[in-house]
């Protein structure tokens, strides 16, 4: 072999080597110069973890700034996952120290809701001495640390529970649409009431800590954080004193009804629950909203137990979680006569001076002839519309009901119902609380539709004269919420403005400055001339102040001269149940600032059960107004006719 071929072969080898190096350089150029920008981002994602810590929620205040929902600091023990994995005996000791089974601790540590980059709260609301013990013996508890967490607290317990609502851990359904807003699994969220409606304002901004983590998720250092911002406060139009008076009075009225005997059956009233609502007719703001039975929202804060939740949903407990003020549907009974009277005057069917001789019964002639009577067969003699309201003459309204039906060609088949709806009955009030029911005002078209949709529950598609008599006195299939009832009277006493009721009043920042006002919202304006208003005002005033008025007995001794009250009793017959007791009132009668609606389920006459409850609420308001000094006495049950 010659020197030349050897050199040639070395040359070949050199070329191979050179080309290999060129390949490496080309690839290096590609990765670091051409593809670098896109891959750099990936390196960034690799190493940065973001940890969210929820901010304390904003408070909920009453109209005078009294705190209805607050936060409290609780002591918690947290476990560093890595450390306790290294020192499992730490958890054994903790389990013994706190009396929490080891499996429970392990479950919490394994819970994926907790960020893997921050310690897991294994025990919340730990007694102070136990926490101090752990801190003093930190050598025995490696990986366990004590810290303070904030959680929702309702300092007044059950007070205004249905209005305030509850908070709880976000579920998958809630999380889906809220992900863009930065919610994470495990977050606390408003579940009902104001907590839900004003969630965005109350929530605040979580602390966002950026951490550098290594390939197995260990935190290396902080890359800075944005501190948590507590949520904004929400001020309600609720007045804590009126709210308390409403709840207490309602409870007393219910307890009293249970001790009373039903005149018709001779059995005590069941009185499973009820509702009392106080609104300001001038802007639709809600001053009090009571629903009975009630619950304690504090039970929900750290996740309610399945057993307790089942208890609260047991039919035997009459569903304390339901807010009857906006979800309970009741036949309005005679309180509905507001709508019938208004419709009659508006349509020109009667004038204020037209009278009818009430002899205690009204007979419909024709093929389906039948007789309708007043409650307890009372005879009221010659009554005009005002007197008919005052004494609650059903016969007068039966007469109107038939005349409406006879004139349906001219006035339409639902003249009364249209007026009722213009007062907000049977339609959503659009209040700023969730899960409201709309109810219904029954009419021929609705009857037909109901029959079509639910033929078994509503077997008759036709509308007869008798049905028009029933609607005229608020009986039949009509069902409205207590809030709708209050709101309809508000839309009358304020001269025709139907407001969307509001519980929220303003959103406040941490310094108490108003960030946003919840403006009054007028849903519609009804044209109510004096020719309609005057006779009705007179009639409702008579209910309370005229000795023949159905509410006269309930208001005996009330300072009517200083604080004039007007109102209407209602007693609704419900198939298969005892009568629903209703009462609506407004005060002062000459320039109303308060409308009260009280509904008690299966409690008897409106005059007997609901009116005394409303009276006690108004007494509390009178005290607040400085009109009366005597604290409200206990609710009394009175006899009555409606």
């Amino acid at each position, binding site marked *: *072999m010659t020197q030349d*071929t*050897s*050199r040639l*072969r*070395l040359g*070949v*080898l*050199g070329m191979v*080597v050179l080309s*290999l*190096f060129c*390949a*490496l*350089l080309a*690839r*290096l*150029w590609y*990765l*670091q*110069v051409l*593809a*670098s920008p*896109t*891959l*750099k981002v*990936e*390196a*960034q994602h*690799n*190493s940065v973890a973001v940890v969210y810590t929820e901010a304390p929620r904003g408070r909920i205040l009453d109209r005078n700034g009294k705190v209805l929902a607050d936060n409290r600091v609780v002591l918690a023990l947290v476990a560093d996952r890595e450390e306790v994995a290294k020192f499992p005996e730490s958890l054994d000791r903790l389990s013994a120290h706190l009396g929490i089974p080891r499996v429970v601790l392990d479950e919490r540590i394994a819970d994926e809701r907790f960020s893997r980059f921050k310690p897991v709260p294994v025990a919340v609301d730990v007694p102070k001495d136990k926490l101090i013990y752990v801190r003093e013996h930190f050598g025995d508890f490696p990986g366990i640390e004590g810290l303070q967490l904030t959680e929702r607290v309702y300092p007044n317990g059950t007070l205004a529970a249905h209005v305030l609502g509850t908070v709880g851990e976000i579920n998958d359904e809630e999380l889906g649409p809220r992900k863009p807003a930065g919610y994470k699994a495990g977050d606390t969220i408003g579940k009902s009431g104001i907590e839900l409606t004003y969630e965005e304002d109350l929530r605040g901004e979580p602390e966002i800590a950026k951490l*550098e*983590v*290594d*390939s*197995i998720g*260990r935190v*290396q250092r902080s890359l800075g954080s944005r501190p948590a911002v507590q949520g904004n406060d929400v001020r309600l139009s609720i007045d804590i004193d009126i709210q308390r008076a409403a709840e207490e009075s309602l409870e007393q009225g219910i307890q009293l009804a249970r001790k009373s005997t039903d005149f018709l059956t001779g059995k005590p009233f069941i009185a499973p629950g009820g509702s009392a609502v106080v609104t300001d007719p001038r802007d639709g703001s809600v001053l009090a909203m009571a629903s009975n039975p009630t619950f304690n929202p504090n039970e929900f804060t750290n996740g309610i137990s399945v057993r307790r939740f089942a208890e609260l949903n047991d039919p035997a407990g009459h569903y304390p979680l339901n807010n009857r003020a906006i979800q309970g549907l009741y036949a309005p009974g005679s309180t509905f006569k507001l709508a019938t009277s208004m419709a009659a005057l508006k349509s020109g069917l009667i004038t204020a001076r037209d009278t009818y001789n009430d002899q205690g019964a009204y007979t419909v002639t024709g093929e389906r002839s039948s007789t309708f009577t007043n409650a307890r067969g009372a005879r009221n003699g010659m009554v005009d519309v005002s007197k008919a309201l005052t004494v609650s003459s059903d016969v007068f309204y039966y007469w109107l009901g038939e005349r409406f039906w006879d004139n349906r060609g001219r006035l339409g088949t639902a003249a009364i119902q249209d007026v009722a709806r213009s007062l907000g009955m049977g339609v959503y009030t659009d209040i700023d609380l969730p899960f409201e029911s709309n109810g219904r005002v029954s009419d021929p078209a609705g009857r037909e539709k109901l029959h079509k949709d639910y033929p078994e529950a509503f077997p008759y598609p036709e509308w007869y004269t008798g049905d028009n008599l029933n609607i005229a006195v608020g009986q039949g299939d009509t069902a409205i919420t207590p809030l709708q009832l209050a709101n309809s009277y508000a839309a009358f006493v304020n001269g025709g403005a139907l407001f969307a009721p509001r519980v929220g009043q303003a959103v406040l920042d941490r310094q108490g400055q108003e960030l946003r006002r919840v403006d009054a919202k007028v849903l519609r304006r009804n044209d109510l001339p004096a020719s309609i208003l005057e006779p009705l005002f007179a009639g409702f005033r008579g209910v309370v102040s005229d000795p023949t008025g159905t509410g006269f007995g309930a208001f005996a001794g009330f300072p009517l001269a200083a604080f004039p009250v007007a109102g209407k009793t209602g007693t609704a017959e419900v198939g298969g149940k005892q009568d629903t007791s209703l009462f609506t009132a407004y005060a002062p009668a000459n320039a109303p600032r308060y409308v009260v609606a009280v509904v008690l389920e299966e409690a008897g006459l409106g005059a007997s059960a609901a009116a005394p409850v409303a009276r006690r609420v108004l007494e509390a308001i009178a005290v607040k107004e400085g009109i009366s000094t005597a604290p409200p006495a206990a609710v009394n049950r009175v006899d009555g006719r409606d």
Partner: protein
Amino acid sequence: MQAPRNPAAPVRHVDLTLLLSTLGIAFIGVLMVYSSTRQKQENAGLDPAFFLKRQAVFLVLGLLALALIGLVDYRRIRDFAPLLYGGAVLALLLVISPLGTSRRGTQAWFQLGGFQFQPSEVSKVVLILALAAICAGARGSLDTTALMAALGLAFVPMALIYIQPDLGTNMVFAAVVIAVLLVAGARPRHIAVLSLLGITAIALIVELGMLQDYQRDRLTAFLDPQADSQRSSYNLRQSQIAIAAGGVAGRGLFQGTQTNLSFVPEQHTDFIFTAVGEELGFIGGLSLLGLFGVVVWRIWRAAVLARDQFGRLVCVGVLAMLVFQIFENVGMTMGITPITGIPLPFMSYGGSAMIASFAGIGLVLNVHMRRFT
């Protein structure tokens, strides 16, 4: 009194360029080993400089090996080739006996106190000597007999390493054999047949399931990184992300997040180049490859200038060993060659490889400085 000046004295012909480039690479290596281990060590509560210190010790050991080899005329070393070869084969036999220890399914180490010694690394250099000796002895073009003798010589250690198993080291062996045979004058036909055989062998090993699954995954992950979301392509992906994250200028020494946060597995050993790529950038990577280029060029030059065929073939063997390892190792971190456990010469953490690489350089320096004597 001064010794008489001898223009042919070996000490006057030491290739300082080669020596200094090699030292430069090794120095960068020590630094990068430190960079890629200090954070992890610190997290574990251990001495952050642990790997730095050990790698420095390995460097000193490597330099000692280089000096030792440089002192003895390579023609004397040739006489010991049969002995060295026998010793290497014996060591490879012992390492697969219960005397050896295994790590991750490969039994390739002797545990010596706190250190592990990997005989297959040193046997690469021994094989170069033995191959060069047998091929240089053939004189003129290699006939079939000489070829078969050379192949037989390579076969024994390769078979023992296959048992360990260590596919990467065997690939280095194959590269060395082909390069030495090429320059030694093997007929082009033989070279072609050998290359074909090698490729077929690898294909058979991969296809016939003679590899563990993880080995096959590693080998094939670079062909289609999307095909396997397991460990292998994770390595590959993270390694490329690290290099790309460096960009042109790099993130600065000790500043790489991929490096500090241990996103690249085995970074201080097989994936050391990713630390260079991320922290020193394209400029750093280019410089490092440049230094390797200089080293390879000086070895090639030594082969060209060598006084005899044995010296030339030794240089060619060392050249093939280093080039294959550089290409395969750097290539795998960038996703253009399969992932095999081959260290980057002078850079990767590890004593045996360091000693073997420096021994190779020692041989080249030896051949080069004694070209006039």
